[in-house]
C-alpha cells in the first residue's frame, strides 16, 4: 500500500511552542478564542518582545550616526498612558495586548478601510530608517525605525478633496494603559491621546508609519503595535499605539494643546529659535553623550521639509 507522505502543513502553520505552552492564557485573552476559528493562529498572536523584524535600510533618508543604545531607547520613554515617569513605560508595558489589533483609516476618504495589524504590516514593503528623535524636553536619540511611509496607506484609502488634516488616536483602555485612570489630583492629559498633522505633512515621504525598531518588532513601551514617526517635529507629535487614523477638514485639537496650549502648539516643529516656556530649545543632549549639542532647524531635516512652511510664521505657529 502506498502511503502518501507529502507535507500536510507548512512550518508557518505550526503553533509556536511558547504560544502552545501558554494556550490557556491565550484563549482567555479575550476575543482570541473567537478569532481562533476564523484565522490562522500564528497571525492572531502578539509576537514576543524582541521578535526579529527584517527590513533593508533606506540609506537615502538615514542619518549617519551610531544609534542610541537599545536599552536606553526602551527604558527612557515618555508614554503617559503607562505613567508620567520615564521608567514607567518599560515597567508597565507588559499590560498592553497588541493582538488582536485593528487600525481604522476613515473620515474624508473614498475607500475607508479597517486594517488588521498583521495585514497592515504586510501591506507595504518595510524599510529601516535611522532618524533623530528630538524630545521637547531637550534630549534626543538616534533610532533605527522600521516601517513604511504613511502616505502609502493614505493614498490607498483615497482622501477626498475636503480632507485637510489627519488625526491619530491612541488606544483608550485604562486596564492596559494604567496612566489613563483618573488621577487623585485630576489634571493630566485628556484621553484618548489625539495627535494630528496637516495632510501635506502626513503625506511627506519622511513621515513613517512604524511597526519596528532595531531590527525587532516595536516594543510596547515605544508605541506597539503601530505608531507614526515624524522626525522634524518634537517627539510627542509621533502618536503611539494607534487605533484610528481619520482624515478631517478642520485642524484637530491635540492632547497636549488641550492640556497646555501656551506650551504646545499644533505644529511643534523642532526649532532652536523658539523656546518652550520651561526649556530653551537652542541645545539638546543626545542620550549617551556628555555635552549638549546645538539643535538644528527642523531637527536637521530642513532641506526636506522647510518648503512645507514657507510663508508661515513659525514663532506664532509653534
Amino acid at each position, binding site marked *: 500500500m502506498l502511503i502518501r507522505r507529502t507535507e500536510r502543513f507548512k512550518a508557518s502553520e505550526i503553533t509556536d511552542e511558547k504560544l502552545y505552552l501558554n494556550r490557556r492564557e491565550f484563549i482567555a485573552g479575550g476575543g482570541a478564542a473567537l478569532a481562533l476559528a476564523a484565522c490562522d493562529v500564528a497571525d492572531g498572536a502578539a509576537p514576543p518582545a524582541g521578535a526579529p523584524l527584517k527590513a533593508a535600510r533606506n540609506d537615502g533618508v538615514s542619518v549617519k550616526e551610531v544609534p542610541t543604545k537599545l536599552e536606553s531607547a526602551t*527604558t527612557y520613554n515618555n508614554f503617559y498612558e503607562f505613567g*508620567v515617569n520615564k521608567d514607567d513605560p518599560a515597567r508597565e508595558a507588559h499590560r498592553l495586548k497588541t493582538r488582536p489589533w485593528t487600525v481604522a483609516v476613515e473620515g474624508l476618504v473614498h475607500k475607508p478601510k479597517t486594517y488588521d495589524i498583521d495585514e497592515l504590516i504586510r501591506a507595504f514593503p518595510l524599510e529601516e530608517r535611522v532618524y533623530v528623535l528630538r524630545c521637547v524636553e531637550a534630549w534626543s536619540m538616534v533610532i533605527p525605525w522600521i516601517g513604511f511611509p504613511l502616505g502609502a496607506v493614505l493614498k490607498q484609502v483615497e482622501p477626498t478633496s475636503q480632507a485637510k488634516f489627519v488625526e491619530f488616536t491612541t488606544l483608550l483602555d485604562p486596564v492596559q494603559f494604567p496612566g489613563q485612570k483618573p488621577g487623585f489630583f485630576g489634571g493630566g492629559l485628556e484621553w484618548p491621546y489625539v495627535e494630528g498633522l496637516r495632510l501635506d505633512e502626513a503625506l511627506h515621504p519622511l513621515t513613517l508609519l512604524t511597526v519596528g525598531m532595531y531590527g525587532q518588532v516595536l516594543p510596547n513601551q515605544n508605541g506597539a503595535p503601530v505608531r507614526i514617526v515624524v522626525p522634524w517635529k518634537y517627539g510627542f507629535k509621533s502618536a503611539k499605539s494607534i487605533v484610528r487614523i481619520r482624515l478631517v477638514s478642520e485642524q484637530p485639537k491635540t492632547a497636549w494643546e488641550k492640556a497646555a496650549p501656551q506650551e504646545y502648539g499644533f505644529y511643534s516643529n523642532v526649532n532652536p529659535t523658539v523656546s518652550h*516656556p520651561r526649556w530653551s530649545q537652542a541645545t539638546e*543632549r543626545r542620550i549617551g553623550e556628555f555635552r*549638549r549639542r546645538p539643535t538644528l532647524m527642523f531637527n536637521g531635516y530642513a532641506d526636506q521639509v522647510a518648503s512645507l512652511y514657507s510663508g508661515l510664521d513659525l514663532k506664532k505657529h509653534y
Partner: protein
Amino acid sequence: MGRRGRLVLKIFAWAVCLAPLAALAWWIGRALWLHTDDLGANPISFITNHLGDWTFRLLLASLAMTPLRIVFGWGWPLLLRRLLGLFAFTYAVLHFSVWILVDHFFNWGQMAEDVVKRPYITVGMLALLTLIPLALTSTTGMIKRLGARRWTRLHRLVYLTGVLAALHFLWLAKVGRTDQYIYVAVLAALLGVRVVEWARRLVRRAGKIPHPRPATPP
C-alpha cells in the same frame, strides 16, 4: 536629654543627611567603572533631580523642627535645625553646580537666558541666594555678634526660601505629575503651624495687657 543622647541624635542625623550623597557616589562609581545603568539613560538629569529632591526634603526637615517643638513640646528637634539647614544648603549648592558645570558646561549665555526667561529657574536661583546669608550666619559666633533678636529676624528668610523652592518645583513639574503637591502641602503645614502659634501668642499678649478703655457696662 543627656550628652550621650545628643551624640546619638547627631550621628543619626549626619547619617541620614549623607546617605543620599553616598548613594549617588555609589551609583556614579558603578556607572563609570562597571557601566551599570543605575543612573538611567540620562544620568545628568537623574543627578540634578536627585540633588534637587534632597535639597527640598532637607529644607522641609529643617523647617519641621520648630513645629515639632510647638506641637509636641519637644526640645531635641532644635538641636538638629542648624545641621539640617546646612545640609539643605550643601545639596542646593551641589544641585546648582551640576547645572552649571555639567549640564550647561559653562555655557554662560544660555544659562543667563534661562535665569531670565524661565520663571522656575529664576525662583530656584533666588531660593539658593536666600540660603547664602543664612549659611554664613549659622555659626554660634555670628549669632552672638548679631544678637539673638536680629539673628532670628534674619533667619525668617528661610520661609521665603521654602516658598521659592515650592514655586521652583511647581513650575518645573510637567502636566500629569503630582508629587510636587505633596511637598507643597508639607511646606504649607509647617508654615501653618507657625502662623497659628503666632496668632495664639498675639491673642495671649493682648489678653495680658489691660484694655485702655474698658467697655462701659450697660
